[in-house]
């Protein structure tokens, strides 16, 4: 019956596309997490009243973040072609999508990290200072653990945006479900393929959301 309903769907190809989507999302998510936390920490620490208060540096980072957040993702991919080519050696395929995916979502996540860090009780930071903690101790043992639930729910939101971005990355032949739906579904007028791909993407989004929520709840001891 499934074959009658979805005559154009080739399971092995679909599975391959699903794996590609997972691959791109997870690798890009790891990159985004690291880069985003660094950006968020810099934004937070250099802001007014921060430990490394520095107006100029803060302005530079904030502007960079804002510029990259302002560029539509599809244009960002095109703009990054030379950089991708230099870094990966090609501008096609899943790996070639990664720089654009990370650079596209890290500034967004960076802002979420900044917001999460602002929510950390100032008193706790002050207590750590009063105990004679180094800045690195304050960052690693106070700021990050105390904001962890917000950092995780932030990365969950980012992950879902990323899944959308991986579909857009289909334009450079990145592979994955978006690519598959476009070339095998839309262009060949096989609407069943588009439908199945959509359902799979929605399921992947649900999986990420569920994992994110579960971890956030587990971490939050407040």
């Amino acid at each position, binding site marked *: 019956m499934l074959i009658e309903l979805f005559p154009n769907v080739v399971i092995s190809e679909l599975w391959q596309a699903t794996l590609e989507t997972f691959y791109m999302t997870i690798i890009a998510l790891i990159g985004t997490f690291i880069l985003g936390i660094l950006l968020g920490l810099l934004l937070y620490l250099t802001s007014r009243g921060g430990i490394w208060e520095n107006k100029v540096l803060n302005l530079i980072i904030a502007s960079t973040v804002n510029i990259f957040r302002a560029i539509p993702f599809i244009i960002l991919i095109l703009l990054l072609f030379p950089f991708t080519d230099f870094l990966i050696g090609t501008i096609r395929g899943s790996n070639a999508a990664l720089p654009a995916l990370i650079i596209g979502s890290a500034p967004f996540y960076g802002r979420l990290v900044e917001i999460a860090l602002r929510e950390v009780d100032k008193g706790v930071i002050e207590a750590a200072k*009063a105990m004679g903690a180094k800045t690195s101790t304050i960052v690693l043992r106070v700021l990050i653990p105390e904001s962890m639930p917000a950092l995780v729910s932030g990365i969950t939101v980012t992950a879902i945006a990323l899944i959308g971005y991986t579909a857009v990355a289909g334009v450079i032949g990145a592979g994955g479900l978006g690519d598959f739906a476009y070339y095998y579904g839309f262009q060949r007028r096989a609407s069943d393929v588009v439908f199945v791909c959509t359902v799979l993407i929605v399921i992947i989004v649900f999986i990420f959301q569920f994992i994110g929520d579960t971890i956030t709840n587990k971490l939050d001891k407040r």
Partner: protein
Amino acid sequence: MIKINSLSKLFHTKSNLISAVDDLSLEIEKGEIFGVIGYSGAGKSTFIRLINRLENPTSGQVVIDGEDITSLSKNKLRLSRQNIGMIFQHFNLLWSRTVRENIAFPLEIAGISKQERMARVDELIGLVGLSGREDAYPSELSGGQKQRVGIARALANDPKVLLCDEATSALDPETTDSILKLLIDINEKLGLTIILITHEMHVIRKICHRVAVMEAGKVVEQGDVLDVFSHPIMPVTKKFVEQVMGDNNQEDSLEWLTTGYKNGDIIKLHFVGETTSQALISQVAKQFDVDINILQGKITQTQKGAYGSLIVHIDGVSDEKESALAYIKSAPVEVEVVHHAN
């Protein structure tokens, strides 16, 4: 032990300069509990934060045990802070850590090995009376328990000084008392110097040896708690004493008290220090053939003994009454004859 020399802190706001602490000098002895009281805005919070340089002073010096805190480099200050414990009004515990892990935090900062940390934490948990709650998270604790964790954490590195920033202001009266008892206990057991700031006079009364009253960034009055209680000079001090002793507006009521008595004397007894009113009154009643009637009074206990006054009516045969009065006067009590009826 702690010397504070003409310490000042100016805050710049958009429109003007605010002098939060203004040319303040104090000396705090080793092992004493020193209280600083003032209304909000008096600068006491800034003052205590200047001691461990959570705020940097504009001018002046803080010297702890011969070490000039104000001139230390960033790194040396960090090490020095490990010898200065601090507890806070809102406890400032890490919610992501258990009681045990919170108390271990300053030990981690000081670079103490895990084994030693665990042993020290267990000891501290016993000291502050939190046994059985080691693995609870702060959100599962009451306010008093949280402050106990705060105290254990502040004591972890065996500090020379404990700074208490409104440590009981967020607690109910009963919990406040238990925390104050714990502080006295620690002060006696460890010989720890404690500096606390508060806006509540009863906190000063219950645990402090000496007190400084702050107003507009300056210490306007200071001395032994009993002296300040019995002879407040500045209006702000008088107000604080009233917080504990009630309104001293008794002149009218005295007249009202005396009108009822045709015979005998009405005397006012001031208790300042190591006396207990009950024993004195009962001794007088036992040894002399006089009637004593307590008309009005308020006695309160401070760290250095009882303080307060009683108004009593005393009547009897003239000789007996005189010798009773002489006996009372020989006790460490100030006697004031308010009304001489016959």
